[in-house]
């Protein structure tokens, strides 16, 4: 029996089943880090009803699958976001909302916001907009589902493997690094 599940073919089938399950129950941790938080309620309420895709809110990081970075991140929040992200269980995904997460957006010259989200935590999908409309948010989720199904949303693995690099970037902007170690 064990041998049967260890060979490559069955692993593949198992992965497909796993990914199917994962993609259809995306519990989001809506950490309202920025403006984008305002489009989350419309997305998950009756008009756009994201629950059709198994998307619904989770109260704590430990229960969540997807971390939504809804816009700009101030340095102070980044510290908390890293905490929240590291608390989340594998597999976990990150979505970056809006311009701010890509290249600084309209706060590109602000002294208190980070400019590229993917330097600090791995991002699986970016949604363009300022703010992204609910439709765009759903399109982002659909994309994320595709990536999960294809087994390409592997930011969490990347983070584990390149923890050094991420830590370096994180500690460059967070001057007072008093955080518990990342422990899985």
């Amino acid at each position, binding site marked *: 029996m064990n041998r049967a599940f260890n060979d490559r073919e069955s692993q593949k089938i198992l992965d497909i089943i796993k990914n199917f399950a994962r993609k259809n129950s995306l519990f989001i941790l809506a950490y309202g880090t920025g403006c984008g938080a305002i489009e989350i309620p419309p997305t998950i309420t009756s008009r756009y009803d994201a629950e059709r895709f198994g998307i619904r809110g989770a109260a704590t990081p430990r229960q969540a699958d997807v971390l939504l970075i809804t816009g700009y991140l101030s340095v102070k929040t980044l510290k908390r976001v890293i905490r929240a992200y590291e608390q989340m269980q594998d597999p976990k995904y990150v979505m970056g909302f809006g311009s701010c997460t890509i*290249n*600084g957006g309209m706060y*590109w010259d602000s002294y208190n916001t980070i400019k590229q989200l993917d330097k600090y935590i791995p991002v699986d999908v*970016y949604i363009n907009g300022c703010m992204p409309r609910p*439709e765009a948010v759903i399109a982002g989720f659909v*994309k994320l589902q595709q990536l999960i199904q294809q087994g390409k949303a592997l930011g969490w693995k990347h983070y584990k493997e390149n923890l050094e690099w991420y830590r370096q970037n994180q500690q460059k902007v967070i001057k007072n690094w008093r955080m518990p170690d990342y422990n899985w």
Partner: protein
Amino acid sequence: MSWFNIKGITNPLTALGQVAKKPHTIRFPYEEKPAAERYRGLHYNDIDYCIGCGNCAEICMNKAIDMVPVEGIEPKKGDSGLRPRIDNGRCCWCGLCVDVCPTGSLSLTREYIFVSPNPEDFLWMPGISNPDGKDKRSWRSNDLNFSINTYEREKMPMLDPKERVKSFAEVVLGYEEDQARREAQRCLSCGLCTEACPEHMHIPEYINAIAWGADDDSLRIIYDNNPLPETCGKVCTRRCEEVCALAKRGEPVAIRWLKRYATERALNADEIKEIVNPPIAPKNGKTVGVIGAGPAGLTVGYYLALRGFDVEIYERNSRAGGMTMYGIPKYRLPLESLDKQIEYMKKVGVKFHFNTEVGKDISFDEIYQKYDAVFIGVGLQDAWKLGIEGEDADGVWSAIHFLRRVNEGERIDVGNRVVVVGGGNTAIDASRVSRRLGAEVIMLYRRRKQDMPADWEEIEDAEAEGVQIWTQGIPVKVITDEQGKVKALRYVKAEMVPDPRGGRPRPVPIEGSETDIECTTVIAAIGQSADYSFLPEKYHDKVKMNRGRIIVNEWGQTDDPKIFAGGDAVNRVADAISAIADGYRAVKGIVRLLLGEEALKQK
């Protein structure tokens, strides 16, 4: 409130009534609700219509727009060849870039979904990345009222047409200070105009200086590469304004009038000297002789003098200025204005020899031997003839001679009816001068009004002053009376025949349509040619000609390295600013020849 209320439990249960209702959910992505008519989504740029002025990049406070070269877009006059590229990782979809676009090529579309796992994807070229965006354009600036740019020009105060014809007083009065500031503020500072200007003046800079209230700086910038700015400010053919970004959908910035405004801040030569205060290099011992004190010659004189050369200008007339002095009527360019600029040149060390005709009073050989370099800027002195019967009659003038005599102060009796043949600026000048001499004026032009090479504004002004413009008429004969004086001009009507090779339509005479116009004077303004009789035979193999124009290289140099040439004698455009550009080019050529490449780089 009681401890138990039944309504508090039953009323919320009414929510159950919604069960049977159809949900209002938009089942995106299975069904779509199109975005609104003016939704601000992703950008679209009409690449062919865009002129690459970069105004969108300038207004964007997120620095989201880069101007980059695009394959297939060739830079040309009025088009920088660059196109906007949007960094969607910066854009905030405010739409200011659309509202400041002077051409209306940039717009936002209804398309807004752009999802990607790769953050590098979000750089894109609107119009190239989304060619199908054209049908989805939503936030646009087709209504000029909502565009941030001001498309209406400040109105230039002018003399009333009825007053104008009474004297040779200057017609254009010039901007008041607040008008100039407002007009200068309209400028988008893109710099497309500098390419169209033959002299590549620093147009955005001096206009900005006016907008900021720094008139002195403005004048200094203007004098950086134009020694006759007041002349240009009054009579320039202003090809810069044709390519102005605002001209695509509105009136161009009044570049000429703003230059005029800046130059008029200095009331006399001393003030110009004080304001401009150019650094004058110590004498370097080199000498340059200039033939002809027209715009080209004056430019060479001025800038070489600043660089420490000994420059002497030979002029056969008694005044400097060349065509700007003798060819342009005084109501456009008053004598005092020109004198002021010449006076300033004398102050920086340019030497003049007036009433000295080369080839008569002094031989070309002598000049050639005496100086380290020679610049020929003799211009076009002779007029083309009409080539019709009776044109030697008394009362037939060539415009250039006519204008010259008038500008020398002579009051010519033109009778009461003048026919001016031609459609260029000189023809207009001759017509308007004739009006001021008290005659009724008819302009006779071979083609249609829209084909006239003259400035549109000039044509309007002439008409306002009462000049009648008769088009599609070809003169065939001057009819004289017994004393050999002009009595009438006979012309045939013409019809416009399209050119089979795609050129502009040609006028073809209509058989039997001869008509006579009764008149006392006929003025021919159909073109000019040069007179090179001063140039001895032995130079002819070095100073080559092509259809009456001297051939020069990129430095203004003829095949004889010592001889430079410029102005109307070289270029076919024949206006003041091109002559100045030629002069400036020759300045660089002469510096390069006499001081070497290195000196060219120092300014």
